[in-house]
């Protein structure tokens, strides 16, 4: 069996072909919130969006958020997710004070950061048992606004110096890059929680059906238009937190733009700027290529993905063999550079790559729950 939260992992790490899934959607109760310390205890199926909906009005924010708010707390822990503030806050697991793990022998254990089993469970891809509840340290924020800046850049040198300068001054930093442009131009986003009146966005666009709209031509057009639009919108803006952190949540079923065969995601981390340049020069056309420099924080999990270096993510329409070959090339480059591939976004890495990405794999394996498994695990574990 395998715990299944919101199913937002891109690959097969949240799937269990031929086995059972334990849906945690019903574990959606809050347990307690202490407004003095910002400590929130809730069941594992509660989504980050639900926490934000309830607690942003009371002046609190989730310490680490990914690109979508539709993920469960259990999933956030199991993948030890990271956000645009990794350079400041580290990964999600660093903010978990306690969790309860239910093992298949029926025993429920309350674990804290010093426990080996806790360190196996954070980033443990649901393979150590079922997280039933967790206690997370939330952070205080002034109001629901984010003061953000969007700075167009031309080329990697500019990206690197912007990272250097911005990570020191801003809580949230991330860059979008147009891999089709020869110069590797892009837009650098940086922001901070800010005071200021701001209205929540109203309404939601939706993609009604599968339209294979993403191809080399549309990506070219989209990238040029996006770059121009960001330039026009002006450098500094006050934005509501929701569209700042979760732009794609504003478009329901955006994945349908990739057609019936869907998309494949790829994300890796490499230690050096040189390795990042090499990856970018090989990157196939993608409307969503994102870069971020990870901070120095040591991740709490044995299989945590975030580590010092540069992380790079892209979406590709799934064209079968062709796409897999492109991904294999990127994987080889990341491995050459001594990097790692992110399981939550992987559909094809080899067992060897997995072992090289996660040096503590042997240590982790000792903590597996014998009744738990996943499609991903059976694929990458020798």
């Amino acid at each position, binding site marked *: 069996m395998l715990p299944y939260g919101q199913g937002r992992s891109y690959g097969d790490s949240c799937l269990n072909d031929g086995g059972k899934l334990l849906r945690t959607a*019903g574990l959606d*109760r*809050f*347990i*307690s*919130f202490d407004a003095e310390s910002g400590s929130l205890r*809730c069941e594992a199926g509660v989504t980050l969006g639900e926490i934000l909906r*309830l607690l942003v009005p009371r002046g609190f924010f989730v310490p680490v958020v990914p690109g979508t708010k539709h993920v469960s707390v259990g999933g956030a822990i199991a993948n030890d997710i990271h956000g645009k503030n990794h350079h400041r806050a580290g990964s999600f697991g660093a903010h978990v004070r306690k969790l309860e793990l239910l093992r298949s022998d029926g025993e429920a254990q309350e674990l804290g950061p010093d426990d080996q089993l806790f360190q196996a469970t954070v980033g443990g891809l649901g393979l150590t048992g079922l997280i039933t509840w967790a206690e997370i340290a939330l952070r205080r924020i002034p109001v629901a606004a984010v003061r953000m800046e969007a700075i167009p850049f031309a080329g990697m040198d500019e990206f690197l110096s912007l990272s250097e300068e911005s990570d020191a001054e801003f809580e949230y930093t991330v860059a979008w890059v147009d891999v089709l442009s020869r110069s590797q131009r892009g837009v650098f986003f940086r922001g901070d929680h800010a005071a200021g009146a701001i209205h929540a966005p109203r309404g939601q666009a939706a993609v009604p059906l599968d339209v294979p709209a993403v191809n080399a031509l549309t990506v070219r057009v989209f990238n040029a238009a996006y770059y121009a639009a960001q330039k026009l919108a002006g450098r500094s803006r006050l934005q509501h937190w929701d569209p700042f952190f979760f732009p794609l949540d504003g478009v329901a079923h955006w994945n349908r733009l990739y057609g019936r065969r869907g998309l494949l995601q790829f994300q890796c981390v490499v230690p050096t700027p040189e390795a990042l340049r090499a990856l970018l020069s090989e990157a196939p056309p993608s409307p969503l290529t994102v870069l971020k420099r990870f901070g120095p924080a040591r991740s709490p999990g044995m299989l945590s993905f975030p580590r010092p270096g540069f992380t790079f993510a892209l979406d590709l329409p799934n064209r079968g063999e062709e796409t897999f070959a492109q991904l294999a090339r990127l994987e080889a480059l990341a491995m050459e550079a001594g990097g790692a591939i992110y399981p939550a976004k992987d559909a094809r890495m080899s067992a060897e790559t997995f072992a090289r990405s996660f040096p503590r794999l042997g240590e982790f394996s000792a903590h597996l729950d014998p009744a738990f498994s996943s499609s991903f695990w059976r694929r990458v574990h020798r």
Partner: protein
Amino acid sequence: MRIVVLGATSAIAQAAARIWAERGEELLLVGRDPQKLEAVAADLRTRGGTVETVVHDLDRDQAGLVGRVGAPDVVLLAQGVFGDASRRDRDPEYAESILRTNLISPVRLLTLLAPALPPGSCIAALSSVAGDRGRARVGVYGASKAGLDSFLSALRQRLQGSGVRVLALKPGFVDTPMTASLPKTPLFASAAQVGRGIVRAVDMGRDAVVYLPWWWRLIMLAVKALPEGVFKRLKF
């Protein structure tokens, strides 16, 4: 508002109670299982509600509870069991226990409670579309809901002019633990969706039968219109 939730651990009752809790209402939760009840209460408190709990077996005793609920503005009656089909259709004791929870207990309770309710208050009882026509698949569950619908209709008429409203809430298929064993079709609504519908119906001052989502009214009109000769041969 003061709201009493009977069968407070029901997924649909929880969904409605969450909306009320986030508005800061005062809730009294009644249920059988102390552990589950406490989990629901903690959730609602965290969301901003003022919450008290009463551990009480509504199947066994109704009179004892009436004295403890005071004069609420809203009574949400949500105790109910679906029953397991293989036992339901063979074991008379088991069939009776479903009737006791879904029909006898609400009837006894409302008989005692209705006269004690202040003008302006509202009884909102969870029934089901299953009460509209007996289908093989719902068996005695449908019968219990048909009985409840009929009783609520009578009560609504009896309380006209007293200022007490009687809402019969009739959800269709809802994705809850009650329907865990059923394959999910596009007809399924989420508990949260049905919860919103319940709160809206109470807010709007409805005093009638409310289908949740609303289009079940049309589906059930068609189902009820089928001649028995046709209906009995159908497999749905």
